[in-house]
């Protein structure tokens, strides 16, 4: 059902991979047939492009990878930890510590400033706070500068900023504290093509500098060329 179009190195090169799944399936309700997913494996620091039409279960897969949902069958390993064996609270903490997330839109907490949105993960995770140098606020400023957010926008309500700026702030939030994995769910679909390429460039460059893996979901084939690995999700049911 799934067609893996990647080079052969989706195999075990590193003892600890950013992500590895096996026999994964998920059932939204007992009446429906389960969604099944191809086995995925991503070495630490490398990026994966997940392409699929709507209804192919992209969002469900990201929910399983982030630990928001637990699989019906199969295993999810992130950084060697088997997520499906952790309790709900442990999965939340694991996500706070190790995973950054970027959505298609509505990425930010509307009543916080750009700066406060970026440092939010460091307030939920001591591990990511300690990974910043020297304080979350300094890394936030470096990231915002690197992502070309003008300084006068840092202390503004995020609702006053453009969509492109909001998506870049979301990227900064996902990157802060150097999580091992970033899950990006169509983060560029609301952007025009100039903004889209710039966003992708910045995200991947900054992720590489931190040895962070990016799992990037999109329906846009044109973006696939930026990634080491690509996986096509074909259909909903099997």
């Amino acid at each position, binding site marked *: 059902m799934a067609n893996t179009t990647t080079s052969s190195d989706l195999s075990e090169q590193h003892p600890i991979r950013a992500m590895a799944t096996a026999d994964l399936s998920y059932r939204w309700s007992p009446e429906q047939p389960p969604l099944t997913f191809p086995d995925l494996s991503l070495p630490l620091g490398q990026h994966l492009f997940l392409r699929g039409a709507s209804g192919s279960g992209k*969002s*469900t897969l*990201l*929910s399983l990878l*982030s630990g*928001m*949902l637990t699989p019906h069958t199969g295993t999810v390993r992130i950084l060697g930890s088997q997520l499906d064996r952790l309790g*709900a*609270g442990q999965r*939340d*903490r*694991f*996500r*706070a*510590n190790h*995973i*950054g*997330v970027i*959505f*298609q839109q*509505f*990425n*930010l*907490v*509307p*009543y*916080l400033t750009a700066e*406060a949105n970026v440092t*939010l*993960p460091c*307030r*939920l*995770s*001591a591990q990511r706070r300690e990974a910043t140098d020297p304080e979350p606020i300094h890394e936030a400023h470096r990231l915002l500068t690197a992502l070309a957010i003008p300084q006068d926008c840092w202390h503004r*309500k995020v609702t006053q900023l453009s969509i492109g700026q909001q998506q870049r702030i979301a990227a900064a*939030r996902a990157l802060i504290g150097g999580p091992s994995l970033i*899950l990006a*769910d169509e983060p560029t679909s609301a952007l025009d093509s100039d903004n889209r390429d710039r966003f992708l460039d910045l995200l991947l460059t900054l992720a590489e500098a931190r040895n962070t893996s990016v799992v990037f979901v999109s329906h846009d084939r044109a973006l696939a060329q930026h990634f080491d690995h690509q996986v096509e999700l074909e259909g909903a049911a099997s």
Partner: protein
Amino acid sequence: MSTRLALSLAGASLWHRRRVLALVCLTLTLSVTLLLGIQYLRTEVKESFTSTVSDTDLIIGARSGQLNLLLYTVFHLGDPTNNIRWSTFQELEADERIDWLIPISLGDSYRGSRVIGTNDNFLERFQYGRGRSLQLAQGRWFDGVFDVVLGANVADKFNHGVGDSIVLSHGGGRTSFSNHDDTPFHVTGILESTGTPVDQAVYISLSGMEAMHVGWESGVAIPGRTLTPEAAEQRDFTPSAITAAFAGLERKILTFQVQRELNQNTSEPLSAILPGVALSELWRLMRQFERALIGITGFVVVISLLGLAAVLLTLQAQRSHEIAVLRAIGASPGLVGLLYVIEAVALALVACILALLIGAVAVMALAPWLQASYGLQIQIRPLSGVEWGLLASVPVAALLVALIPAIRTWWQSRSLGLGEVAEP
């Protein structure tokens, strides 16, 4: 750490939604103000009512029920059952345990207001409220036989001043056809407003009471037998009977002993009552009304809390994206639920603090007017235990109300995928 984060997020969120929430907070503030205000006024009015008479240890009258005696001596309502012989009053005056006595003689009226025959002790000894004595607003206390002192409301209502001449009527009632036309009285003084029934009566001497009834023995004036003011000045008018007396004792501890002796008096059937006890009993008649009032106010608070719940649930629909973001970066469903609880309790606390401030300002602003218009003495005082309890119940109720959206969010968060938004 997550509690601190929840507090700071809740603070930012409240500030972000301040326009909508200000209205909810205002509604809640007003209903809490109402609740506290009614409770406060209720106790103050009770306090004021039960101190319509103070410092008086016993009220002594002809044998009757405690409420009846209280009503006709203090509130000028209803009619005395009988009189007390003057000789009995003199015996009481001779009693060493009794410090002072105010004789009261009732029966006549002035345009619907009671005429009270009494003596100088009334001005000197009668107290009301928290130990307040009577004061003359104008003029002086009566001296001559045909002098009269007016209560504040009587003077105000009929626009009388010192020096006016008034004619009293025989018997009670608003429209009496038999007037003491031959013996007009001269207003010598007007009492300060007290907010008690004292304001609604006129005061003459016991001699005056006797003098105007000379020639009225049959119940109507017999021409030629009534006195002229000039003739009256020459005579001595010792009353044969009075209606009742207020008594102050030398030692308060003897109150019950004196009361028991008077109630068991064999020479004349007397009743002695403790005014405080009788006033409390009278107040108890109003308990149902009080309860209804508190009940209605409670409903007002409940309705505003339901309004708060409705607003929180409406906001919840708008907040689904924000909650998806918080969940995605690792906030637990508990933390998300905690946001609602903190926000609702914070709103309730703000409402309570505002209600206290509004209440304090209102009491300070209205106190002089209430004193002047209704004789209600209210003042800023520390809240009682019951009032603190009422106040504390508001944030507690807000917490319970917030549990509805909090539990809903918590429950939905458990089953939603990454970036998924709850159905409203």
